[in-house]
Structure formats: structure tokens, C-alpha cells
């Protein structure tokens, strides 16, 4: 289920960077901020903006939390503000997807407890990249230039739908099918904790309905693979 309308709370350094990347995805983007200067900058870039005091539930509802927005990014500069906004949004809209950014080591757990679906820690990611660059620069370079770069290579998810032909197949058997330039990485098992099983380790695991298969490869092959394994009836409804 792809989000249509995305709310972006906080248009400072980080918000700008995220907006840059989201612009290209073709989603409808709404920038929400308390600061006029930030909003003016967003408007300059042609983004839809809304001034809103996010400590007020009424104003949040007016921005579309619990209504028009499918997903919000919580990118405020203060951790306390982030947690508060996450809690308010979760209370207003139980089904909303909330992605929050943490700014200090302890806050990730708090954000998750407050109801965020995903927490991104920019400093942790940067630190990981830096240590990887020291330890295995070749791998980082290769990934940057392939998966994250311009090259036509991506890690894609394919949902196992009832009647698609994937259900009941062993993980190790999936890559035996001819015709796709794809590598099966593993599958995320349907369930509360979204456990990831790797094809290399659990080759015997049989896919079930609701699992998500992870494959890597050129986008053309991914699209073809998806189409071939989509049950004809349910397609288009989602």
C-alpha cells in the first residue's frame, strides 16, 4: 500500500533533505511547520505548506492527521517535540504511518513507545557508514554505486498473495525459476515481530500467505516477477 499524501513536520536541515528525496517519488507532499521562515523556504521550492501549532490537536486534525494524510514524517529539531507530536498523532489516528527521527541515543525507544512505526537515527547511520568505510570500503563503494546509486539495481519486496503460486514454495526453490535476473535474499515472515529469514540459512522455509519475499535485481525483472506472481483477481484493488 503506497502512501498518497505525506505530511512532513519540520522543515529545517533534515526536513529539507527528506523533502528533496520525496519530491521525486510522485507523492503529494505537505510541509508543516511553526516557523514562518522555514515555511517560506519550502514555498520557494514549490512545496505545499501549512502553518500549524502541532501541540494543538485541533490544528493537527486540520493539517490532515486522522484525515487526509497517509504517512507523516516527524523531523522536528527537539526530541521532546518529536515524542509529543508522535503521541498526539498516534492518539488522533491509530492507522497512520509515523516515521520519526531521533536525535539522541535514548530517544529511539521513546519514539517507538510513543507509537512511531519507524525511527531513523541519522547519526547512527552515519557512524555505521564511517566504520564500514574503514573496515570494508570496497563493499560500501559497491553498494553506493549499485543499490543506492544510479545503476538499475534495487532491493524489492514482493508480497506473497493467496493463489499467486509463491505460497507453499520453499525459499531455496524460488531462484530455480528461469527467466529472471533476480537473487532471492530472504523473506519477512508475517507476524507481530516481522522476523526476517534469509534464503541462505533457511532454504527449506516454505512461504506462506502474508509473507513478504525480498529480491534484488534490475527493476524490469522485479516488475515482471511481480506481475507473474500476482493473482489476477486481487490486482488493481489495492
Amino acid at each position: 500500500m503506497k502512501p498518497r499524501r505525506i505530511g512532513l513536520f519540520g522543515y529545517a536541515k533534515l526536513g529539507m533533505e527528506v523533502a528533496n528525496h520525496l519530491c521525486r517519488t510522485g507523492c503529494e507532499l505537505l510541509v508543516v511547520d511553526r516557523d514562518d521562515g522555514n515555511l517560506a523556504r519550502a514555498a520557494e521550492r514549490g512545496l505545499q505548506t501549512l502553518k500549524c501549532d502541532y501541540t494543538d490537536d485541533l490544528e493537527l486534525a486540520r493539517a490532515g492527521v486522522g484525515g487526509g494524510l497517509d504517512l507523516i514524517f516527524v523531523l522536528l529539531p527537539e526530541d521532546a517535540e518529536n515524542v509529543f507530536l508522535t503521541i498526539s498523532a498516534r492518539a488522533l489516528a491509530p492507522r497512520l504511518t509515523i516515521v520519526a527521527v531521533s536525535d539522541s541515543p535514548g530517544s529511539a525507544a521513546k519514539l517507538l513507545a510513543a507509537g512511531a512505526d519507524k525511527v531513523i537515527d541519522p547519526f547512527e547511520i552515519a557512524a555505521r557508514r564511517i566504520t564500514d568505510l574503514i573496515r570494508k570500503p570496497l563493499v560500501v563503494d559497491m553498494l553506493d554505486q549499485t543499490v543506492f546509486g544510479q545503476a538499475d539495481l534495487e532491493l524489492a519486496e514482493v508480497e506473497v498473495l493467496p493463489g499467486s503460486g509463491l505460497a507453499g514454495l520453499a525459499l531455496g526453490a524460488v531462484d530455480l525459476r528461469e527467466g529472471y535476473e533476480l537473487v532471492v535474499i530472504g523473506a519477512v515472515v508475517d507476524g507481530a515481530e516481522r522476523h526476517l529469514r534469509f534464503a541462505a540459512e533457511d532454504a527449506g522455509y516454505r512461504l506462506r500467505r502474508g509473507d513478504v519475499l525480498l529480491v534484488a535485481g534490475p527493476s524490469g525483472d522485479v516488475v515482471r516477477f511481480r506481475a507473474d506472481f500476482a493473482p489476477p483477481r486481487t490486482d488493481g484493488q489495492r
Partner: protein
Amino acid sequence: MSPTPPLHLIVRLCYRLDDSARYRRCKRFAYDLLENPDSPLRPYVDVTMCLLILATVFLMIYEVRHPLGELARGFEDAVIGVFIVEYLARGWLYSDVRRSVIEAHEEAEFLGIRLQLRPVLARVLRRKWDYARSPLAIIDLLAILPSYRPLRMLRFFLLFRVFKLFRYTRAISEFAKVLAEKRFDLYTLAMFIGFVLFAASTAIYIFEAHVETSHINTLFDAVYWAVITLFTVGYGDITPKTPEGRLVAMLLVVTGVAVISLSTSIVVTAFGEKMQALRDRRVFADVDKLRDYVIVCGYGRVGEMVVARLAEQKRPFVIVDKLAPNIARAKACGHLALCEDATQAEVLANLGITRHAGSILCITGDDITNTYITLSARQMNPRLSVISRANRAETIHKLRLAGATHVVMPYEVVGLMAAEYIHQPVASTALAGILSGERGMSIDIVAVPPRSMLAGQRIGAIALARHKLTLLGVLTGVDGGAQRDVRGAIELRASLQGRRFCFNPPPDFSLCAEDLLVVLGRSVSIEHFRAQVEGSALHAGAGA
């Protein structure tokens, strides 16, 4: 013109020695043993020498009341022998005689004059005299001389052996260095004390030498009294009897308190000023022992996480940060840390950036600082791996220009992940998990060494699944890649040295030496597989 016959022989001998690798090795060994502060042997030699010195001093004290046995005498003679050898060896190391002779010879050749024995000898002896004159050498000599029987009355000087300990403990020599920096203040104080003592003892002598009841009979009594009073000891065995004498005593006691407090404050401030430098020097010494370490500039949010991961990987590192609280935090975790400004070239040089450092991380929160450190680090060592952090997008280009090997931008990564997340929440989370090494899974590279079990193999024939590994692709070797017909290979930028990445190669793809396999799997499986591949190459090498 050829020199006179005996000199001719000496010059030839010198040239022979200069050529001899064995002689140089000998001298190098002696240097490592006695002088080289970085030599691994030094600590053992130092401790042994200290123990020998303490043993002889103990024997000396014991000898005062008890006669020494045959064994103890033999031991003392042996230790004296060691001291003599050490004294001579240090003299030998102090300068190169053969160099002086060769230099003199070459100068004479150049000028076309006959080489004379006297100037050459003078040149050599002058250098050795410099050694003999140095304070530590004098102490060494004084520690040896009294053992010679005719000089027995100089036994007192045997105590100089204790001073020999100076050589072997760095702490004491640093203490002396600190005091030496305050030379001017201490001289002034000494002059003042000398003046006061002179005035007071003369005065008391004049006032009291002729008084019947007074204990001051000689000038020496007067000086003794003045010293005991000035330094506020005041035994009371000599006391002034006349009112004039008492006046002198009062003034002297007041001056004494001033002198004591003044000298204390001089020493305390000297150490206060030098403490930081002393601590820094210790850090530099520790860093000097490391090899292929990481210099982490900036211990903020990113720095802290990087350091935690480096510590986990057991990779040596040293932290530099301008802010004292950051350094205090790093030290609390037991890390090697230095409170200095990394933009100063001197600090980087002291951290061995031109010697054994493997990489430097410029990850402060300030782009200007990062760029500056990047630039100076690159200038000092062109081969260093420089990884820099850009906080603003514009800086990336500047950092690359400044010479950064890699640039990391925390906020950009978040943008990428955010965009990825809204498309494929499950896949992006899984990818992040793999990249962060969650549950031990990682993507890594296994090289194909020449003559190993992989070289020349077809992809289909390698049972990677048996090793619980997933093959993502192959990075083709530098030279072999161009000729091979690789379907769908992705061209990579120059940073990968012209390699090409073949994603998911077909089963009939055959591997060449120097190819790199990119595999996904548990770190243990990857390690095991790599060890097997490398082992097979060794076996093949031994069999051939």
C-alpha cells in the same frame, strides 16, 4: 694524497666498519638496549638496571655494620662491571668515531692536503669529551669510581648510584624538566635566600659573637643558626641572647615563611602549567605504539557511535576534540583521547599522521573545521584514507576537492531512507538491518586468490548454498575484466579501480584470479568460507 702509514690503517679500518652490516647491527642493538625510547627491550633493561642499583646501595648500607661475604663482594664487582660496560657503551653510542675519521679523510681528499693524525684525534676526542661532560655521564662515573680501592675514601659518592636511577625513570626526568622551565624564578629565589642568609648570619655574628652566654662562637655557628631559622625549623639549640639578635631572629622568621610559600607556589604553578602537556605527551607516547590506527576528530554524536563501533571491532583509535567535556566523556569510557585543536598541523603530526596512522575521520559538527582538517591531513600524508562528514550538501564537493577519500552526509542518508521507506517499508527496513549487521548478517567480499579452489571455477560449481551464503554478484578483476564478455555488467566509477560489477552471474560464468565475490551471509559463514578459499590457495602453492 695518501695519509701517513698508521693513520692510513685507521682510515681503512673505519671504511671497513662503515661497510660492515654486522657492526651496524651491533651498534643498533646497543642503541635499542640503552637509548632508543621506543624499543620493546628498553623497559626490561631499565627495570633490571634499577634493581641492580638498589641492590648495590643496599649492600653499601649493610656493609656499614656487617662484614660482607665472598658472594656479596663478587656480586658487587659484577654489578660494577655492568656499570662500567654501560658507561663505555653509552660513550661508544654517543658519537660515531668512524664517521668523524671518514669525514676528516674526505675533507682532506677534497682539499688535496695530507691527513694529519692530531686534528683527527682532536675531532674524535672532542665529541667523546662532550659525552663525558654531560651531567648523567658524570653521575655514572661517580657511581663507578669509588669502587676502585685506592679511592675508597670517596665512598660517599657511591650514593650517586641512586642518582643513576634518573636515567631509568621517565617520571623523574620529566619532573626535572618541569623545574628547569622555571629556572629564572628559582634563580631569583635562590639569590634572595642567599642574600638574606648572608645578611642574617653576619648580623647575628656581629651582635652575639662577643657575648659570653651566647652559643654563637664562629661564623659557621651563625650561618647554621640562620639556615635553621630561615627555613622555619628552629631547633632551639642556639638562641639569640641580645635584643639586637632577637630582632634579627624575628625578621628572619617572617622572611622564612615568605620564602617557603614563594618556593611552594613556584613549584605548584610550574606543574599546573605543565600538567596538561605531560598528560598529552603520555597520549602521544601511547599512540606511537599503535599501528594502522584511526584518528577520530570530533567526539560528538556521530563520533561517539563511531568510536563505540571501532572499539567493538577492536580497531585501535585515538580521539581528538577541542571541547574538554567531550574528552572527559571519552576518557571515562577508557578511550585514548586528547583535548587539542585538530586543525593545528602540529597536533596531527604528533599523532603520527605521517607515520603509522591508517585513516583519519573528520566528523565534527562544523563543516569549516572538517574541511580544514581534511585539507591539512591530505597535504601531510597523500596516502592516508580521509573520511569526512558533510553537514550541508554544498560541502560534499568542497570536501572532495580538499582531498577526502569518502564523504558521509548524515542528513542525506535519512532522505534516501525516507524515500525508500515509503516505497517499500519491508525491504528498506531489511536492508538497513543487513547493513547495520543485525543478527550477524552482513554483505562482504571474498577474494579469489590465484591457484585457489575458486580460480577457474564456474559459478554453478561452487556450492555456496552449502556454506549458507547468497551470492549477490562478482566484482571482476582489474585486468581480466575488459576482455571477458560480461553480460549486463555495471560499470563502476574510478574509486573501484576500474572493476566491473556483474550482478547475479549465470551458472556458466567462470571465475578468474583477482575476482571478488560479493556474498550475503552470517559473518561466521563468510569468515569460514574465506579461510577455506585462502587455505586452498596455500595448499596449491605448497604442492606446486
